[in-house]
């Protein structure tokens, strides 16, 4: 392929990709730009089991919509009044906040109990039915009718005249925590005894989408101000994932602003300094704007939303994209104006290229430029693309966004650049820089390349010894976020008041059928003894199939013809039902046992996954009371089969550790594969010399981080993929344009400057994950530059007259 055909292919690719971007742009105009702030996408999937993951995702999605508002004051009346005012204001507003409405679920639950009423019996009733004499049963039923047992009727009298099902329903609903919400409690807040009421609310929209999040936060703030205006003496506390997501989004917005503004200003100033022409800004500015814009439109089209972390990383593309324009201008400068090259006056190696190139030579040189630019693009795309192998959803999107942005920016440089610089006139004013680089190269040339390799090896061993051959690591997902401690304190306080169960640990039981599952719950209860009292699961909602059959059999005494129910109705006539009708219903209900799936499979149920059916298996989550020691619990459960203790934090840590190790292995595999590719282009010794630069950059970055006392996270390892990509970028340019080492190296130094600027700004990110990425790339880029210098300096030696 010649340069002309290459350019034509670029034009076609640009047109096709622009059409794709227009589609994405149209989608944004129609549906709006959706920015996702969900921090969960920075965590790997919890389990290898798809069902468990799906259930955890549902739990997480439900939790992200939940919001708790606490009204507190030393005066109980103030709390009651403010709570009532809050309730009225929430009811009156038609915004995104509403109370968690379980009424439909409760209605459905009670309807199921009524439908299967002959299989359901309360605990007291079971004991009564076991008594041989009918009088005891009649007496218990009378007590239910007259006494406190009947004061709250959940099951209508006509369906359950004796009140035995009602007893069961009352017991279940009393254990549901939402029963106790927004009622007055006493608590200690900041060392003071206060009264408080917690209001559990739900956001009707996706709280992790930035636009919806802003609406929800504004609505919460309005409610808060309205309540505080009427009750200034109360304290208004709030907790929920939305506040953490909003806090992170706020930090990320500041990061995006800092990185994009800093990078843009830095790159523009650099171009103005080197090229001294406003026209020179056209290619970098257009490519810097259109590349990320293209990526934004296409990602929105693919994913439906764009993660805020993607935009933060996307902002760092500005520095990388500037490199293409730099190499492009340097190439045209070299072909158009050989006199405008200080290196020729300062370096002895430049004497070989003084003549103006002919048309054929020009075309060949242009193709050489395109080839070098393409290789540079490929290494960067591979570097960023490696992020998709991280196993984290957020990084997958970053990889795709960055890859797309780089490709489009690169195309812009080729397409606009070749149209704009038709007369091949580019002036470069880098004399001062080239002088420094020429001197540096001469200084570097004093040592042989083998000496540098030995020095690098010694440094590596020294750093390892300094670290005592130990790499500190941190696989906690918390190491990725900068969590606002005020929000954490408030969350802990409110969680302590409202929640009774562990938020991120649970027990998962699986079985082939319902009875087997209930048997395993019984084994679990037997193993835990008294500690099992607070466990909360499907067994709190419905009796086991075996118990249901026992209940049905025990109820026979009541509902046979002229049975106990008939006697009871004679004493207490209920006009809506007759004894005969009850007997017939009982007989017709044979073999119509209640399955928990009838209740838990309904859509929109905001309950934990107490019953999940997948193929022939049933999975059931059991909630663990906060009072239990989860470490001891995990040990005790390890002996039980099909009963698994799941700790979200511990599992995520294990997953992240696994991902960190596999990413490191993958990094070295990538290094080996690139070495093979390079070997096809260069000879073995040249390949080894080239590949030594990225190899040492990687290992020295790792040991350097360890020496700085920075625990290695998955993000540090993922950043090393980019270090590898950038390194290849530098060494390929150094190898491809070997006829003018000073000019080439000046371009490399300038390219490294833009990269260092962008990634340097990442270091200041408030998100530790982004900051870790930045610091790794900075150390790696500096080492890459050093390696490229050492490599290029050998060319000076080879051109020196002997």
């Amino acid at each position, binding site marked *: 392929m010649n340069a002309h055909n290459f350019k034509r292919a670029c034009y076609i690719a640009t047109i096709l990709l622009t059409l794709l971007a227009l589609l994405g742009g149209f989608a944004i105009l129609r549906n709006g730009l959706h920015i996702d702030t969900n921090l969960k996408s920075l965590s790997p999937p919890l389990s290898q089991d798809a069902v468990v993951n799906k259930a955890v995702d549902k739990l997480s999605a439900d939790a992200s919509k939940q919001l708790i508002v606490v009204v507190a004051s030393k005066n109980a*009346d103030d709390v009651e009044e403010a709570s*009532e005012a809050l*309730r*009225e204001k929430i*009811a009156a507003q038609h915004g995104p906040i509403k109370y968690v409405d379980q009424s439909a679920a409760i209605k459905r639950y009670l309807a199921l109990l009524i439908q299967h009423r002959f299989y359901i019996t309360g605990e007291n009733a079971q004991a009564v039915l076991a008594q041989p004499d009918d009088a005891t049963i009649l*007496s218990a039923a*009378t*007590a239910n*009718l*007259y*006494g*406190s047992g009947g*004061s*709250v*009727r959940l099951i*209508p*009298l*006509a369906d359950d005249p004796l009140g035995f099902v009602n007893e069961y329903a*009352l017991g279940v*609903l*009393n254990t549901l925590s939402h*029963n*106790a919400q927004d*009622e007055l409690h006493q608590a200690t807040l900041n060392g003071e005894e206060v009264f408080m009421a917690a209001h559990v609310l739900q956001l009707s929209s996706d709280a992790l989408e930035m636009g919806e999040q802003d609406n929800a936060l504004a609505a919460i703030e309005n409610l808060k101000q309205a309540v505080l205006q009427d009750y200034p003496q109360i304290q208004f506390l709030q907790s929920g994932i939305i506040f953490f997501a909003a806090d992170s989004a706020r930090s990320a917005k500041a990061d995006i602003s800092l990185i994009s503004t800093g990078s843009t200003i830095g790159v523009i100033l650099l171009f103005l300094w080197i090229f001294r022409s406003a026209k020179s800004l056209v290619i970098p500015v257009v490519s810097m704007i259109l590349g990320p814009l293209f990526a934004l439109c296409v990602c929105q089209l693919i994913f439906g939303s764009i993660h805020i972390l993607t935009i933060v990383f996307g902002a760092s593309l500005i520095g990388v994209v500037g490199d293409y324009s730099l190499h492009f201008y340097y190439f045209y400068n070299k072909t158009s104006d050989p006199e405008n090259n200080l290196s020729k006056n300062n370096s002895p190696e430049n004497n070989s290229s003084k003549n103006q190139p002919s048309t054929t030579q020009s075309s060949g040189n242009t193709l050489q430029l395109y080839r070098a630019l393409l290789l540079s693009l490929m290494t960067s795309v591979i570097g960023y693309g490696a992020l998709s192998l991280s196993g984290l959803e957020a990084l997958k999107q970053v990889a795709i966004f960055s890859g797309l942005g780089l490709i489009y920016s690169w195309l812009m440089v080729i397409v606009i650049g070749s149209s704009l610089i038709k007369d091949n006139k580019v002036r470069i004013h880098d004399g001062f820089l080239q002088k420094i680089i020429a001197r540096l190269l001469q200084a570097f040339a004093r040592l042989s390349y083998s000496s540098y390799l030995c020095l690098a090896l010694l440094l590596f061993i020294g750093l390892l010894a300094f670290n005592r051959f130990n790499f500190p690591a941190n696989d906690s997902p918390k190491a990725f976020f900068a969590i606002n401690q005020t929000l954490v304190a408030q969350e802990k306080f409110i969680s302590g008041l409202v929640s009774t169960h562990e938020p991120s640990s649970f027990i998962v039981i699986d079985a082939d059928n319902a009875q087997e599952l209930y048997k395993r719950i019984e084994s679990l209860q037997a193993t835990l003894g008294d500690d099992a009292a607070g466990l909360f699961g499907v067994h709190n909602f419905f009796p086991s199939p075996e118990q249901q059959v026992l209940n049905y059999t025990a109820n026979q005494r009541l509902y046979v013809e002229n049975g106990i129910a008939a006697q009871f109705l004679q004493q*207490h*006539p*209920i*006009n*809506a*039902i007759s004894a005969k009708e009850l007997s017939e219903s009982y007989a017709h209900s044979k073999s119509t046992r209640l399955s928990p799936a009838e209740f838990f499979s309904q859509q929109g149920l905001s309950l934990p996954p107490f019953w999940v059916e997948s193929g022939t298996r049933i999975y059931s989550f059991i909630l663990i009371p906060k009072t239990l020691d989860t470490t001891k619990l995990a040990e005790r459960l390890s002996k039980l089969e099909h009963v698994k203790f799941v700790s979200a934090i511990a599992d995520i840590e294990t997953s992240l550790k696994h991902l960190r190790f596999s990413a490191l292995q993958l990094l070295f595999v990538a290094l080996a594969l690139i070495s093979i590719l390079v070997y096809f282009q260069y000879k073995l010794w040249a390949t080894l010399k080239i590949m030594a630069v990225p190899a040492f950059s990687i290992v020295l970055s790792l040991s350097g981080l360890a020496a700085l006392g920075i625990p290695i996270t998955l993000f540090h390892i993922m950043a090393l993929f980019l270090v590898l990509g950038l390194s290849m970028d530098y060494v390929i340019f150094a190898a491809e344009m070997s006829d003018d080492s000073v000019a080439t190296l000046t371009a490399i130094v300038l390219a490294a400057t833009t990269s260092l600027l962008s990634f340097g700004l990442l270091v200041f990110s408030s998100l530790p994950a982004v900051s870790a990425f930045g610091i790794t790339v900075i150390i790696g880029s500096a080492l890459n530059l050093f390696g490229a210098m050492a490599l290029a300096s050998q060319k000076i030696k080879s051109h020196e007259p002997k």
Partner: protein
Amino acid sequence: MRLPFVKIFTAIFLMFAAPLVVWANTTKLSSYLPEGCYHTGEYQQHKTLAGMDKPLITDGSFAFNCNQGLIWHTQSPITETIIYKAQGNHVVVRADGSMQVLDSRVQRALGKILNNLIGGNSDYLQQTFSIVEKEDRVELTPKNKQMQNFLHSLSITHQTDSVKITLQLAEQETIAIRIFARRSFTSLEETQCEQLPKLPPQACKILFKGTR
């Protein structure tokens, strides 16, 4: 000039008249309610349920200590005692001596209302209900919408030797309680409570010491 004057006059009148209106509303209510902190008495309750032609009638007695709460003892046709503690943790003691905590929202709210009604806490009633005075009774409607879900209205009627409290509950349920033979005391400690003839001593223990 005249209109502002009328407005100012009306405002001043209302400023002074408003407490008078409240006072007028509460005087009748206060006269219906018992005074003091310690009472005992007897009751007869008629509960009308949807689906039943005849009301369910229960008889019993009660004891009230404003600091501890209320013992509500049913003697016939069943034996059952409910202890509505002032702090809100209510317990039922059945004929066989078994106990159960009553922690449903409705039971807790009903306990609170009963405690304040039997105890004659007019401050609470004024805060919680809109009070309308009729010729022969005082009608109370909950201000709180959540309370309205289970208690539509409440009326208090004064008879020669008794007070009748009628609770209009949800689901067409009505509870009419006639309180009579009411006695006030200067104190009602645990030992005195245990000596009351119609109350089980176990209930007094729970009222003063809790279930443990």
